[in-house]
């Protein structure tokens, strides 16, 4: 290694070991800087949202820092339209995540475990739904609902969200099922368990982490979905739709507070899951 880093030390024949060490150090420093740059890039917008939840703006626009306040946390539910939009979003997210979880787990299990006529077609459909643009999905869902004569609202939003979440759940579950040793289920049958007992006592606990991850993913996809929701909502207003409408007249800081709380809840779940799996790894 011939590269010498510039040094202010007296040039009294620096040992090659030392120079190599200094080079590695500067490399480490670059890596360190790069890492923090990426983290900042990812976190800064979120951080800004959190900070402006504590801002005390004088006008309608919450875009310049004008002083610290906890007012918006106290008055978080003071805008009733916004509150009901958030509640609507939460209800739709929970219901659609659970439905997508149940249906997606079944599909993922079938795709991962069995070979059957149409399995590869099913796989293709799953990946198509994941990869197709939301705009296309929104338009086609709208066409479907309108031509079926279904009144647009919470129900159609939920149906739409379940529809695009299923693929994610089933893909995650399928990936887990494929790695399972098939003879474990055979062992359960061998010990006298019927198909129902085998699934609930043996298979389900083993794929539970994947099911849980799939449901969380579905929840996250649903709660902030805008495009598909916009097409299928009719007059129903969800949290993202309300925000979209409010941007033209200025966003109230309550939006930042709600965003902060949703984000905090997500972080909390991630941390708990991480800690639990770490405890489990230690036990295993």
């Amino acid at each position, binding site marked *: 290694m011939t590269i010498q880093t510039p040094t202010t030390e007296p040039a009294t024949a620096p040992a090659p070991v030392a120079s190599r060490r200094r080079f590695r150090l500067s490399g480490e420093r670059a890596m360190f800087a790069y890492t923090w740059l990426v983290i900042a890039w990812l976190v800064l917008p979120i951080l800004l949202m959190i900070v402006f939840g504590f801002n005390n703006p004088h006008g309608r626009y919450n875009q310049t820092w004008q002083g610290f306040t906890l007012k918006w946390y106290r008055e978080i539910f003071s805008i009733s339209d916004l509150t009901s939009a958030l509640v609507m979003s939460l209800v739709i997210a929970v219901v659609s995540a659970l439905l997508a979880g149940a249906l997606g787990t079944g599909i993922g299990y079938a795709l991962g475990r069995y070979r059957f006529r149409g399995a590869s077609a099913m796989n293709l459909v799953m990946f198509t739904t994941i990869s197709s643009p939301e705009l296309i999905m929104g338009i086609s869902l709208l066409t479907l609902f309108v031509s079926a004569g279904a009144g647009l609202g919470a129900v159609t939003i939920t149906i739409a969200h379940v529809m695009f979440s299923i693929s994610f759940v089933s893909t995650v579950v399928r990936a887990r099922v494929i790695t399972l*040793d098939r003879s474990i289920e*055979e062992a359960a*049958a*061998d*010990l*006298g368990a*019927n198909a129902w007992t085998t699934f609930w006592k*043996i298979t389900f606990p083993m794929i539970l982490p994947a099911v849980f991850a799939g449901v969380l993913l579905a929840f996250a996809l649903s709660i902030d979905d805008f495009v598909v929701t916009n097409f299928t909502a009719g007059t129903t207003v969800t949290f993202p739709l309300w925000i979209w409408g409010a941007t033209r007249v200025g966003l109230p800081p309550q939006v930042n507070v709600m965003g902060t709380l949703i984000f905090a809840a997500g972080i909390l779940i991630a941390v708990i899951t991480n800690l639990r799996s770490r405890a489990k790894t230690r036990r295993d």
Partner: protein
Amino acid sequence: MTTSAPHHAVPASSAAGRRTDHPAIEFVGVCKDYLTHGEAVPAVKSLDLAIAQGEFFSLLGPSGCGKTTTMRMIAGFEAPTAGKVFLDGQDVTGVAANKRDVNMVFQSYALFPHLNVLQNVSFGLERKKVGKAEIARRVGEILEIVSLTGMEKRYQKEMSGGQQQRVALARALVNHPRALLLDEPLGALDLKLRQQMQIELKRIQREVGITFVYVTHDQGEALTMSDRIAVMNAGLIEQLGTPREIYERPATRFVAGFIGTSNIVAAPVSRVEGGLAVLDLGPEERIVVPVPASVPAGREIEVSVRPEKIDLHRTAPQAAGSVLAGTVTEVVYHGTSTNYTVSTSTGSDFVVFDQNAHDAEDVASRGERVFLTWAPQHSYPIGV
């Protein structure tokens, strides 16, 4: 093909009460085809087999010989294409796996990773709605037999391969099945542990007195543990017999080659004298082999002789039995024995194991001319 009566050395404590006069397991005309690309590929062709109560029975053969398929048909994981399977005289051909009174030890152990040892072993009894106190008693008893007492709260990942193996064994045995099926259970263990578990398995089988059906491709394992062995090849049983019968009197060329090492010579019978056929191979070379009276002079037969039965000489011997001349092409020292490869006038190479019983030098070295001799009773005619 001779089959000896199996020995029921130790009557079972718990399984004994249910014992019937029927074979523990019986196959009648069983075939199994697998569909591959719309084509029926036979895995098992016309199998007739009776495994006796309390027997340690091995299915031995190379991979793809149908031994695992046979075992899975006993367990109920595969349905025969034709024929019938009986357990204790009852036709179970159409009975699902979870309704059959047999249990299996899987090659991968297939322990339930989210359940501890106690929960794993109790699983079968819970399915049968056995009372809590009875479960605790039987689980405690079986964990003692497999030397796992004190490990009740452990999970699979906290145990060594040998311990996991014992859990799999306990989980199956605790149900007192009519037969225990073992699918290459020692395959994943290292040599030392494997040998230890062989002895252990044999002890446990004697202790519980349950019929063991053991699938393996390891001939040493099968010879060591089994009461009887079925050697399978290409979906058929080539030979069924005690380890000694199979080793000493291989019924087919496949068995002779698969079990241990065999030297095989094919030659016409020169003459038959008092139950011994003499196959002259040269002026001073001949093979002497006991044959049934039905074998006439002139018929070509295959003769098998085991490497450890052969003596090696430097000078032409005056022996009454078989004599062959040849040249040593390979000498390999194995510690307990020295193995010679000798190229003979029969056209085939002979392998000779010479026990290193004395501190002697090698009997012969590479390139040396030697004579092989063995007693008449150590020749065995294949398929006669």
